């Protein structure tokens, strides 16, 4: 008995189907295409993800129309500290920070600070209910066509961008804000001198 060799496997019971050569069918082709497409999609997503949110340089300009019909452009706000908060009514962590955001807005609103709420992928009814629920009084509008969030390449909601008096991005917070984070950030930016446009 040769000990180095394994016994050949016993032939499985056949019904004549085993020896059929491989053939392409519509189902198989679809499975292959589907898998290939998924891998391609993931690869593309990976490239996108590696870019990360915009963190430095001039903050991308945008014009936002609020839920009550007013419009506002970022470029008109030079000389003021701007807080841009991306949120959505369906986002639980946004609820976590909502009260703190509003509280901080009320504290700073007369001191050269502008808060802008950008509502990301939302339904107007739910969004208004949310604004009502948290009694939000700062400027708030829907990101129609996700143009603003694409420019800022946000990673999700909530996400908050801090813009200094000269319109330069000075940081981003991914995830909910909590005391005293926002206060500290605003205090720092407010203390900086504004050389004029």
């Amino acid at each position: 008995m040769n000990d180095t060799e394994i016994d050949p496997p016993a032939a499985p019971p056949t019904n004549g189907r085993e020896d059929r050569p491989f053939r392409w069918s519509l189902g198989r082709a679809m499975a292959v295409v589907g898998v290939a497409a998924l891998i391609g999609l993931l690869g593309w997503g990976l490239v996108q993800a590696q870019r990360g949110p915009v963190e430095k340089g001039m903050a991308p300009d945008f014009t936002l129309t609020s839920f009550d019909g007013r419009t506002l452009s970022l470029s008109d706000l030079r000389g003021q500290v701007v807080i841009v908060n991306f949120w959505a009514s369906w986002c639980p962590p946004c609820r976590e920070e909502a009260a703190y955001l509003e509280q901080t807005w009320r504290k700073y609103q007369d001191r050269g600070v502008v808060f802008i709420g950008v509502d990301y992928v939302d339904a107007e009814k739910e969004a208004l209910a949310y604004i009502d629920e948290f009694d939000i009084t700062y400027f708030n509008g829907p990101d129609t066509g996700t143009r603003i969030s694409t420019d800022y390449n946000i990673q999700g909601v909530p996400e908050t961008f801090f813009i200094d008096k000269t319109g330069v991005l000075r940081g981003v917070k991914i995830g909910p804000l909590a005391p005293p984070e926002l206060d500290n950030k605003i205090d720092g930016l407010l203390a900086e001198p504004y050389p004029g446009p």
Partner: protein
Amino acid sequence: MIADIGFFSLVIAFIMAVYGTAASVVGGWRSRRATIESARNASLLVFPLLTLSVVALVYALYTLDFSLAYVADVSSPVMSGFVRVTALWGGQAGSVLFWAWLMAGFVAVVLVRNGERDRELMPYVNAIAMLTTAFFVGVVVFITNPFARLWYVPGAQDLTVALLPPPGAMPYIPPDGGGLNPLLRHFGMIGHPPTTYLGFTGFVIPFAYAMAALITGKCRDDGWIRTTRRWTLVAWVFLSIGLVLGGRWAYDVLGWGGFWGWDPVENAMLMPWLAGTAFLHSVMMTEKRGMLKRWNIVLIILTYSLSLFGTFITRTGVISSVHAFGKSALGPAFLAFIALTFIGSLVLLFARWETLVSEHQLESFFSREAAFVLQNMLFLAIAVAVFWGTVFPLMTELITNTKITVGPPYFKKVTTPLFFTLVLLMGLAPLSAWRKGAVDRLGKAAGLPFLASLGITAGWGYLHRMHPASFAALWVVSFVLLRIDSEFWKGLRIRMVNRQENLPVALGKLVRHNHRRYGGYIIHLGVVMIALGFIGDAFFKQETQRTLAVGETLTLGEYTLRFDDLQMYAGSDGREVVEASAALFREGEYVRQLTPRRDYFVTQKQPVTVPGVYSTPGKDVYVLLVGWEDIGTNGSTFKMYLNPLINWVWAGGFTLLAGVLVSAWPSSSRRETTYVLKPGPRPAYSEHSGG
């Protein structure tokens, strides 16, 4: 020094894993026993070597060896010893090492236990499992190495992280570490990653068996599928525990009053769980009737692929998620590995497609086979819906350059009816028999539970007139609950009458002698309990928010909260704590003091909201402190939730675990099992059931 040992044993483990993979393939291909043995020995070495690495890293974390970049990142002197140890999986590099270690552990157990059985399959099982292990060890060695050090290059702005010193660099040892993300310092988060990882890595074993069966052409025999079933059950139960612990963690730490948010990271875990659950059921069809062979292999491949897919999207940030996982360099390597796995398994499956024919056809639409097929389709439909919702933002961004996130409303709408159909099926399917339709039996055995559940629903409906949508959901849950109870009762009565046993003895013996069947029922019971928790969350959750001055009150339902005091103090682990004290009243009667608080971790600049919770079996009162005035105590904002039935989710989780333990328990007596499964007609039984 110890870190060097850890690093070198890691490198040797990588070499062993690569060798083990290659030698297994060669040995299996050429049928050379010596080569196969050598591959097996090398593969068995991987686990102890990685253990050494893990021990070295844990030691470094515990003793705060800040010369390692990873330790400086996640450990810190203010953390307790226990938390420092858990920092092993608190960051990217450590968690991938931990992952590879667990996987190597599973492979080692398989190689030791099944070395002699499945002789022809084993070389390929070894090869596939080792290839996967080698990939993860390779990632740890080359891409995200926890033993890398910090270096200071004169003139450079930032520190360099590298294994070997860059030219002219000096080692840099920071005075203090960053410390573990505060959100992760919670018992749910301490248990959640290891159990989840055990679940994810455990699926590699069934996958390796399926691949080996396809490669060798042994997929027509079903011996391997029995081994696979047990391993899938092991992985599945860990994944289930991971899901429940993750939910509990979200509930306790994330501070939004819920436990499941349909976030991509949660979906990433749910999808393999769904596919794995489908497989655990369909595998019974193969065992009992030799049917659904192709389907089973497809399900194993799907389960494993989905767990890889889930790991990929959570680790690389491809799909934006509210969970903050760091971006990392392992994306491209991971993508290549996923592509290899998906395409490789698909090619093998096609090559053996014709071999995998069923031995029987479906004979009746009311047979147990049909119930299993339906159940499988439902599970897969949910998985597809979840998958679609998860990748949807990515697809819309590719096509329209606009990210459209579907959010929880989509998931709830699509999956709720499917889940409830599944729960209903859970109550009905055990009534059906193999092969034949049994509509008449259905009526007889389900009649009483049906009527009783209608009664319960009517009573419920009277009490909760304003929530009509909950009636149907509650009917399903109560009906299935009663149906499962009646299955137990049926078996109990036979024993109590025929053998004169009292209730506890009969129950013990019944379950012991049919552990797979009654273990299954207990698992189902756990699922129904979890469903009840979801009903509470979906229909009866209440919330409110208000800013209170000291002495003011906030009322929600029958509960009233009175703000008494606000304190700020320095807590342990380097945190500043703001804690409110509020008295809780139920219909005017004092219940207890609640202390919701906000911990601010100074080093990490991260706050953690800790709710004040009053928990009863019926509902939780969940109070959050969301804001306060800097000075004084006249303005603190509270959020208050009433979360009815939520504790059923956790209780259901425990029940499920108990059910798995029962059903996976090694059989004691085979003879009695057969006997009780097929009770003959007995006069005593018919007499009693007639009366």
